[in-house]
């Protein structure tokens, strides 16, 4: 195996794991902030219980979002030296801003929110979770701005084989950014909505006694899910306009239509000269899975929304099972979507400027293999443990909150005490 393949596998693995957790974090934080707002405004205890229950699952999920993100940030320096060499002046800027403007604030305030339960004034504590949410979305914006530069490099000029930043605003107005960001945000909303609805549905199936918390949560989730699902589809297809304009070969391979493929090949020949500039044809498969999966989810979540009428959703029971089954689907679709976007960019690391082959560092393959095995084993194990903890807390319900307990009475959050 060569360094290039191993470095790509390593990045794909870490990134995919990272997306599983950040997608849910982005989705859930909106629910947690919304529920806490409902509590602050109405003063109803049920909203406090909802906030704490979903907040617990949110922070357990958050842990893995952080550690996978750490590995990713430093992987650029480890394996992708050519990328900094050629495009570091431009590509590094949004990443630097992500850490300084977004993540720094997000992590600081999340720590304060976690430890501020029953300690900080109500409205300040509420402001903290909203600041965490805003920072999380700002973070997504900067990361996608960096990624959009890889898809459609703008705002720079090339001098002596290196890119120099000439127009920072162009990075944010990039045609490959806006629709993709909204697509990703919609996916987070769908994943969060189905997560909230699915776990609530499970509690109704098991007839646990937390009816009030899960009745309201189910509504929140079932209302949010179709909004997310339909806007995913909307912004998904809108992106194809930019893809057709800037990466015609990618779109042709996604569609697998012979006429389109031939036309795209001619365009590549004109633009880059002889050579193979097509991504692997298998990206058509994740594309089909993503698209059809999103259609199914859109219809199914819409049906669930309609069934909220007169509480048919709960009374019929079958839709409850459907909601539980749908819970993991958005995560699969998110990975498929990223495969299409990133593998579809191949053979380029920065489209038209730098091939992936030249972007990779000159590291012995043995080292990359060892680090790949190390990262995959450690992160993989932690992912399994984290999902197991999330499942455990989801099953226990709102009685076992992690928040606001003190050193003197920590027994309440001990699961064995249940």
């Amino acid at each position, binding site marked *: 195996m060569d360094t290039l393949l191993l470095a790509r596998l390593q990045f794909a693995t870490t990134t995919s794991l990272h997306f599983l957790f950040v997608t849910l974090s982005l989705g859930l934080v909106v629910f947690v902030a919304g529920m806490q707002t409902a509590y602050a405004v109405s003063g109803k205890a049920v909203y406090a219980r909802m906030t704490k229950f979903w907040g617990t699952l949110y922070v357990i999920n958050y842990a893995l979002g952080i550690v996978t993100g750490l590995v990713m940030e430093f992987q650029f320096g480890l394996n992708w030296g050519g990328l900094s060499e050629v495009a570091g002046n431009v590509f590094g800027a949004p990443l630097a801003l992500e850490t300084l403007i977004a993540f720094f604030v997000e992590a600081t305030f999340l720590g*304060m929110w976690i430890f501020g339960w029953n300690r900080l004034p109500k409205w300040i504590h509420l402001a903290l979770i909203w600041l965490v949410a805003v920072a999380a979305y700002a973070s997504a914006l900067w990361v996608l701005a960096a990624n959009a530069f890889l898809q459609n490099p703008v705002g720079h000029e090339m001098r002596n084989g290196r890119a120099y930043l000439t127009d920072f605003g162009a990075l944010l107005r990039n045609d490959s950014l806006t629709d993709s960001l909204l697509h990703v945000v919609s996916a987070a909303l769908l994943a969060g909505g189905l997560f909230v609805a699915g776990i609530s549905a499970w509690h109704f199936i098991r007839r646990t006694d937390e009816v009030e918390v899960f009745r309201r949560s189910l509504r929140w989730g079932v209302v949010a899910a179709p909004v997310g699902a339909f806007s995913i589809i909307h912004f998904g297809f809108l992106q194809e306009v930019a893809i057709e304009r800037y990466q015609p070969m990618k779109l042709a391979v996604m569609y697998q239509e012979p006429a389109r493929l031939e036309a795209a090949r001619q365009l590549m020949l004109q633009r880059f000269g002889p050579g193979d500039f097509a991504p692997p044809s298998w990206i058509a498969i994740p594309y089909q899975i993503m698209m059809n999966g999103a259609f199914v989810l859109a219809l199914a979540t819409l049906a669930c929304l309609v069934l909220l009428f007169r509480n048919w959703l709960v009374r019929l029971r079958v839709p409850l099972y459907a909601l539980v089954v749908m819970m993991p689907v958005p995560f699969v679709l998110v990975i498929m979507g990223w495969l299409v976007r990133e593998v579809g960019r191949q053979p380029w690391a920065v489209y038209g400027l730098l091939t992936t082959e030249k972007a990779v560092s000159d590291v012995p393959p043995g080292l990359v293999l060892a680090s790949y095995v190390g990262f995959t084993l450690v992160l993989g194990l932690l992912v399994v443990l984290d999902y197991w903890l999330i499942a455990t807390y989801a099953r226990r319900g709102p009685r076992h909150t992690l928040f606001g307990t003190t050193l003197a009475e920590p027994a309440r959050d001990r699961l064995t005490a249940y």
Partner: protein
Amino acid sequence: MDLVWAVLLGLLFCGYFVVDGFDIGTGLLLRRVGHTEGERRALLTAIGPFFLGNEVWLVAVGGVLAGAFPLVKDRALGGMYPLVVVGLLVWVLRDASIWFRSRRGSLGWRAGWDRMLVVTSAAFAAFWGLFIGAALAGLPPAGATAGAARLAGPYPLLWAVAMVALFAAHGSVFLAVRLSGDLMKRAEATAARLLRPAAGLLALAVSAGAVLVLPKRWEVLLSAVLIGGLGAAALWAARAAVRRGRHGRALTLTSLAAASPVAVLLVRLAGDLPGAAADDDTLRTLGGFALVTLPLLVAAQAWMWWAFRRRVDAGTVVFF
């Protein structure tokens, strides 16, 4: 413009050693200072509200490297590839120990993660020692990866021992500031035991570097010895402060000491990296954002410290 960003990078990196330094130190001492399950939980609560806000300093170092010094990032990370990979894995496991530890009530589960936290905190401190020791000899040339002899030779190993002692001492003083009652007394006693050996090891590591490793340029040698000497002296003085019950002053002193290895490293590398910064246009753009956001970041962190300034006692909210 280069200079402004170099100073910012230096401040963030030094700040990281100060704030994550006592998290690492607390992890190291978890089972020594905390004897029962409840006491260990109190130790984790001492660092708890700050833990997330502390480690983001290193994330910000990575971000500033990527944005303002992309080529330095490649030489530091790629050049010390095996070491950096191990350091990342240790960091991930350290974090996981803190996050997972109290999520189940089973005492076996908690004791297991406690052991993991002690081991990974020690390994993380040692990693920083190896990193600094190896980098003091100069970063490997662009595109090259240093071998094991360079990354884990006698000199980096000396630094590894020194950093474990330094972070443990720093952590014990932090715990004396944050805890109360018996636990505070125990943290004080631990600090009194650790501070002098830590001072000695730091002085030894820096002076051995001046003789063996550092380039023979008087300005580098002089500032390295001066900074290292001040760091060691601060540790020595912190012991007296702890014994007189002046915990705040002691923490200020150990914080200076915790930052000193990074300062020595920056002095060593400063002359080596001409033209390593990103293009001026990039730096100016980033600078505009930084000008607006840095005061906000400082304010956010100051607010965090202010909000959770009270000592940990029975009524303190727990999470980790």
